């Protein structure tokens, strides 16, 4: 059996196509720019990226290829022989499926290795996330099984590309129907899991079980429907029952409102990693400790800009971390790699106290009718030597004037302005 499988792996087209898809995947993973990437440095995200590429691009192509390979006996008019071979139809379908799936697994493993290697080069923790990868591998198996089934039952030249197009369509349509339960049966996870989340391993493994069982059940279909081949025995009912059970669980389980289905909130760390500079403290998730040098630089810059001013917040906690008190500010980190300037900007953006709920912004006529908080932010950013957005000549003239006033006047005005914003009052007139 092993020899037949190896021969089929050499004989079939799956190897060529898997290598083609793998070359595209490896290029995609290697060409990503660390500075702007949303996955290099986060193990969750690295796993998601490989899985989504594996399912949508490689899985669709491999499904089409499997359909093509499955139609070979009919195309070459040897189906009469293969149908009467001393092997059942299910076993023949399994062989074609295994040959294609093993190729795709090989390429998938290479892509995972590349993605993890890139992440390991950035992250200071080693915590590869496997469950989305397992689901992706199982889903690829289901796609290939569907291809084998379609290619055997409909051995037309157009079946193969039609299968590829069909999978693309399924994923594109499901991407626009995020609330649809049925989408869980065709998982191509494209979610943003930063340090706040961790995979819901149980659901991912149930979904992987569904995919694997459904793949085996789908492979039995041609043998059940085509008269000439030896039909599978009652054993074929086992994967069907398993698929029904796992699929039923996926369709009936509900995630709490507002929470993702495939992930759960990560538990609060016992001790977040913090950088303290002067009066400013910035705390991060332990997995993001590679950002500590940038956090330290940013904290230093924030301390210089507003550290001494009452009214501004000086304790920053990365999104998802429990606040230390009412004066803690959320520090959003959207990418695994941030430079000091971006982190400084994020901290200064959170340093101003938030407006009370329902408080409409007050417009400052002097600046050309922009919200008064814009001027406060622009002054603060300029003090931290950050680029401020251009809101027009009138705004720029007022900003220039405020920055030209003595530091003590600026400090007084900024403190009063921060206090006013927090109390939903108009900020005092800018100093002259």
């Amino acid at each position, binding site marked *: 059996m092993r020899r037949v499988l190896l021969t089929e792996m050499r004989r079939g087209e799956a190897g060529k196509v898997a290598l*083609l*898809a793998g070359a595209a995947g490896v290029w*995609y993973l290697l060409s990503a720019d660390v500075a702007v990437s949303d996955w290099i440095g986060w193990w969750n995200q690295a796993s998601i990226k490989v899985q989504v590429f594996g399912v949508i*691009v490689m899985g*669709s192509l491999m499904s089409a*290829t499997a359909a093509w390979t499955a139609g070979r006996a009919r195309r070459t008019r040897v189906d009469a022989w293969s149908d009467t071979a001393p092997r059942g139809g299910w076993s023949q379908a399994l062989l074609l499926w295994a040959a294609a799936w093993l190729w795709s697994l090989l390429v998938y493993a290479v892509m995972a290795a590349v993605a993890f290697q890139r992440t390991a080069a950035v992250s200071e923790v080693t915590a590869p996330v496997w469950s989305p990868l397992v689901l992706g591998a199982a889903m690829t198996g289901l796609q290939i099984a569907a291809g084998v089934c379609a290619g055997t039952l409909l051995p037309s*030249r157009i079946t193969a590309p039609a299968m590829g197009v069909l999978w*693309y369509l399924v994923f*594109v349509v499901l*991407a626009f129907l995020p609330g649809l339960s049925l989408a869980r049966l065709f998982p191509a996870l494209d979610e943003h899991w930063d340090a706040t989340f961790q995979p819901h391993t149980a659901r991912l493994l149930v979904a992987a079980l569904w995919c694997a069982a459904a793949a085996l059940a789908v492979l039995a279909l041609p043998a059940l429907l085509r008269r000439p081949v030896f039909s599978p025995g009652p054993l074929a009912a086992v994967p069907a029952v398993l698929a029904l059970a796992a699929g039923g669980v996926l369709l009936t389980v509900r995630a709490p409102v507002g929470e993702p289905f495939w992930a759960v909130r990560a538990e609060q760390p016992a001790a977040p990693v913090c950088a303290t500079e002067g009066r400013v403290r910035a705390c991060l998730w332990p997995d993001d400790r590679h950002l500590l040098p940038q956090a330290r630089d940013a904290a230093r810059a924030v301390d210089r800009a507003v550290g001494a001013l009452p009214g501004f917040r000086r304790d920053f906690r990365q999104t998802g971390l429990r606040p230390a008190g009412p004066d803690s500010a959320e520090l959003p980190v959207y990418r695994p790699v941030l430079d000091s300037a971006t982190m400084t900007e994020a901290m200064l953006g959170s340093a101003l106290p938030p407006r009370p709920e329902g408080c409409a912004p007050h417009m400052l006529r002097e600046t050309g009718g922009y919200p008064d908080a814009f001027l406060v932010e622009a002054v603060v950013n300029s003090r931290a030597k950050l680029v401020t957005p251009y809101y027009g000549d009138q705004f720029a003239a007022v900003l220039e004037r405020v920055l030209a006033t003595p530091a003590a006047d600026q400090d007084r005005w900024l403190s009063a302005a921060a206090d006013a914003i927090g109390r939903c009052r108009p900020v005092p007139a800018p100093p002259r």
Partner: protein
Amino acid sequence: MNPVLAFVRSRDLPRAAAVSLVLALAAAVFAGTRVEIPDFRYLVDYGIPVAAVAPVAHAIVLGTTLHSPMADLEHTAAQPMALFRRLHLLALTALAAALSALPVLFGLPVDVAAASVRNAVGYVGLAAISARLFGSGLAWLLPLGTFGPTLLLGVAPDNTPEWWAWSIHPPYASGALAAAALLWLASLLLPPAPPRAEDRAEA
């Protein structure tokens, strides 16, 4: 029988043309709609007109006619088939381009039609290259294989198409025009090869 007619029949061109016509009519019905790029890279608004996507389907369907049921005979024919092969490619390209432009009659803007024709030329070229590299049965492989990554990864974080995703570039983008032309010319100039084992087995 007229040799051209015999060639057309042997490649099942009428059936493929009929399927493509149905696809073109469907594209015409949805001429005003756009295929929104899914939120794969956390983008908010990037859409491609249906008419600019339809050429992929035309290339895949018309690409099925690249298979010859008598490849061995053609390879050893007294009359070289290179001219027929090139005429065949020209005819497929003209057909795909005409069908891609068909939605203009139903109100499709001319610039979208231009992008559609450009994509038709490029994808037909890609299908011919795929047939030459992987066997005529797998003519669909490269058009389909490039279309998936284009949908998934073809838009940069700043909401502009990646340089390599030529088929979703604006209609008159010179790089995209050059890519389509290059693919088509490459398919036209690729030297013929003896029939592959798979093609022979199907004869």
